């Protein structure tokens, strides 16, 4: 097909599946040859905007178990969409193999190409190559697993009633952040084995007790048990699933399901900036290369830049609609700057990034970063003074004893390193997930479960909310629960 015909095809704001196939041919060629990306096969789904909202509230999984939580999220998302608060994602993509991305039917051709480059190639490559995703998620089997999870929960509802199942799910959701393993490798049960598990477990109404609950008659054995668990357990849901004295088998399975899902999403919360930066940078490079190679018209590019600048728009702190740092902006700026300082370093760059300045193969470095870093380490290593200056970042200390805020660092020589460190720790998970672990179970006494909260930076837990969560945990544990 002649380039002028291709240009014309892309200039037509209405696309057909032929346009998509054509776009994919070009984008995939550039992505592999120019950027060296390595992606899962793509499944590109065409949806209405209502279906899009649906997917959004199911957190991007094409199906999930039924729960009022998703009803609420759907309604809230719809509400925000109507208010124009969310750019109703022209981008929603699932970490799976094949990689599923959604394209709304009323997207223009430019948007469609954008979704393709951003989601189907940018995010896709990230999911396939980033170490956290490789370690903690199984793209091959997640969809299948969700099918079974959904089916299993439905069967439980039929057998035990929707209210009872909902009660368990509600309790699990409140502990979702504490259902992940951060350091222990998950066991490698294949999906086939999981299926068999679920098939067998459905009618298991029994309460299979862990050994620790056996009554101990003899004194000497009593003294052997010092503390259970012998080391604090960070995966609270896992602990409850294995050790709760009162849960029935089917309830344990539900906890397990919620855990698995939480684990699946764990890397996403740790790589927001890096992932979005990767995808935004990818779509930027690909579309510009397409233009360079003569496939796109000026008109197309105008629309593209309009969308692109919307995505990376960062209001400054004093604007009324400021709502924090935009991860797309941050990620894109860092990657763009890496490209710049690799190909065209200044003296400052050479000082700050001696290893990579001037090495010329920026694509290789880009891929290396995508593979080996998460937000915290990404920013710590690669946030450059240039980006800090461009964004005019500054740090404000809020000491609760003072009645003023203090600006502790701005974008000058003495501030760069500190800003980098501060911003990096901003993305540390402990900043939004308090450190709570299982400390002890009173095995011989009232079976009380004791959770320990380790404060950080003098912060305490929000008491009101904690009071609401304890009953959920007590429901699962079956005995008193306290948090110290």
């Amino acid at each position, binding site marked *: 097909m002649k380039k002028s015909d291709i240009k014309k095809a892309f200039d037509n704001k209405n696309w057909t599946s032929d346009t998509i196939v054509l776009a994919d041919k070009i984008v995939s060629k550039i992505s592999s040859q120019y950027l060296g990306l390595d992606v899962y096969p793509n499944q590109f789904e065409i949806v209405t905007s209502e279906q899009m909202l649906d997917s959004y509230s199911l957190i991007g999984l094409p199906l999930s178990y039924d729960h009022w939580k998703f009803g609420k999220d759907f309604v*809230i998302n719809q509400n925000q969409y109507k208010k124009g608060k969310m750019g109703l994602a022209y981008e929603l993509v699932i970490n799976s193999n094949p990689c599923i991305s959604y394209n709304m039917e009323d997207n223009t051709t430019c948007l469609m190409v954008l979704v393709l480059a951003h989601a189907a190639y940018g995010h896709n490559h990230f999911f396939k190559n980033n170490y956290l995703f490789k370690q903690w998620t199984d793209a091959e089997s997640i969809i299948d697993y969700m099918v079974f999870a959904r089916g299993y929960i439905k069967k439980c509802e039929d057998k035990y009633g929707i209210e009872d199942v909902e009660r368990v799910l509600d309790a699990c959701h409140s502990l979702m952040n504490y259902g992940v393993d951060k350091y222990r490798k998950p066991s490698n049960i294949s999906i086939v084995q999981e299926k068999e598990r679920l098939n067998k477990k459905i009618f298991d109404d029994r309460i299979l007790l862990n050994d620790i609950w056996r009554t101990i008659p003899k004194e000497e054995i009593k003294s052997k048990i010092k503390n259970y668990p012998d080391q604090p357990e960070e995966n609270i849901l896992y602990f409850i699933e294995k050790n709760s004295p009162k849960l029935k088998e089917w309830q344990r399975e539900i906890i397990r399901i919620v855990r698995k899902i939480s684990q699946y999403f764990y890397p996403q919360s740790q790589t927001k900036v890096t992932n979005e930066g990767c995808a935004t940078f990818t779509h930027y490079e690909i579309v510009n290369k397409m233009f360079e190679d003569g496939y796109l018209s000026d008109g197309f590019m105008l629309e593209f830049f309009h969308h692109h600048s919307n995505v990376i728009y960062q209001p400054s702190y004093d604007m009324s609609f400021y709502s924090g740092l935009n991860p797309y902006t941050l990620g894109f700026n860092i990657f763009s700057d890496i490209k710049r300082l690799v190909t065209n370093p200044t003296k400052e760059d050479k000082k700050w990034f001696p290893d990579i300045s001037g090495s010329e193969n920026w694509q290789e470095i880009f891929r290396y970063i995508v593979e080996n870093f998460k937000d915290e380490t990404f920013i710590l290593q690669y946030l450059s003074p240039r980006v800090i200056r461009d964004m005019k970042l500054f740090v404000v200390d809020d000491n609760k004893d003072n009645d003023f805020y203090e600006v502790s660092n*701005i974008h000058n020589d003495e501030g760069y390193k500190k800003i980098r460190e501060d911003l990096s720790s901003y993305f540390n998970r402990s900043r939004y997930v308090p450190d709570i672990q299982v400390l002890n179970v009173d095995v011989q006494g009232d079976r009380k479960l004791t959770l320990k909260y380790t404060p*950080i930076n003098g912060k305490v837990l929000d008491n009101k909310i904690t009071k609401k969560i304890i009953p959920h945990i007590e429901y699962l544990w079956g005995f008193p629960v306290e948090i110290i």
Partner: protein
Amino acid sequence: MGINIVDRRSNPKGKSSENRQRLLKRIHGQIKGAIPEIIKNTNIKDINSTKDKINVPVKGIDEPQFTYDKDSGDKKYIHPGNKEYSKGDRIKKEKKSGKGKGSGAGGASDDLTVTEDGFTISIDRNEFLDYFFDDLQLPDMIKKHLSTTNDFKQKKAGYVSYGNPSRLNVVKSYKNSMSRRLSFSIFFDKKIKDLEDKLLLEKDDDKIKLIEDEIERLKKMKKSISFMEEIDLSYNNYEIFPVPILSAVMICIMDVSGSMTESLKDIGKRFFMLLYLFLTKQYQKIDIVFIRHHTAAREVSEDEFFNSRESGGTIVSPALELADKIISTRYSSEYNIYLTQISDGDVWDNSDAIESRKHLEKLLSKIQYAWYVEVTYDKSRSSGLMQSYKKIEKDNFKYGIISNLSEIWPVFEDFFSKKNKTNEKVRY
């Protein structure tokens, strides 16, 4: 490696309807509890309005997660866009101003909005009616009947020049075409005739040729008058009108002496709303007349009827007299009249009860149906008014003693079943 394109648009409505159902179920209890308050604030006629969404505040659907207390601990914020600050600058903290991200009192059109206290959910008319009926414990068929919207009929209304081909009126179109052709032919014929006359008088050869050419031309034009043109087409036109075309008037009489409490008034209001809903199935236009009385009777607006406080004893007959007067001056026989009186029965003295009965009997001959609803918590004593009314022996009158909402329906029931027999337009 090609791309796999999947078109999901033809799939029926999303998965979220199931989830929304669950959400609704969860807050069902709360919505139910909020209904009396909503009814208090809704005008009777509005119960039928399809446009408005009703906002119900809802608690208990938050999903708590362990979080830090916002006021504790030392925090660092990193912001972009520094314009003026240097290291060490201090900015005074504002006092708590309740600014929250993502919170806002959403407009009435939002589905679920986050406010400072939680969520409000808006439900549409049908959902609201479900809750409304639930309390009243109406039989299911009645519920279905009341919640369907009005029927419409089509009737012929002349002709239009555009429309659906199936509505083409062939005869009329043909007539139009004929008249057009005729008038054009006459036009040309006249012209040709004039020229032919001229031809007879003309001697000059050149001029003869010109005239003959002209005649030829005109004859050709006459031949090319088309048989049927778009302008001829005539389509049948239909208008829709709601069935039926009668009008009704509801006369609501309520005792507003001190002894009527809020919840008793609520029962009264529900009764009126139910009647109104029922009547909207039958009538295109329903007027409502509000008469309140204690010792004196007055016609008032709906707002005053339900809300303003007065006290005093109870005399009933002036109210019925007033109703009679209103009927004879304002509502001729074109209207079907329904009268409801709600009271706690405690009249001043017996002569009033007798007077009232006399008035009511007189009215019953003019109106379709009347109800006397005595709202009271104490069913053991029979009030003076009730004893008097019991003596009425007309079959378009019904009375009942009600102390809670579920007892409204039995009082209504006879009326419904009666209507069902006589009026085939009532579909169940």
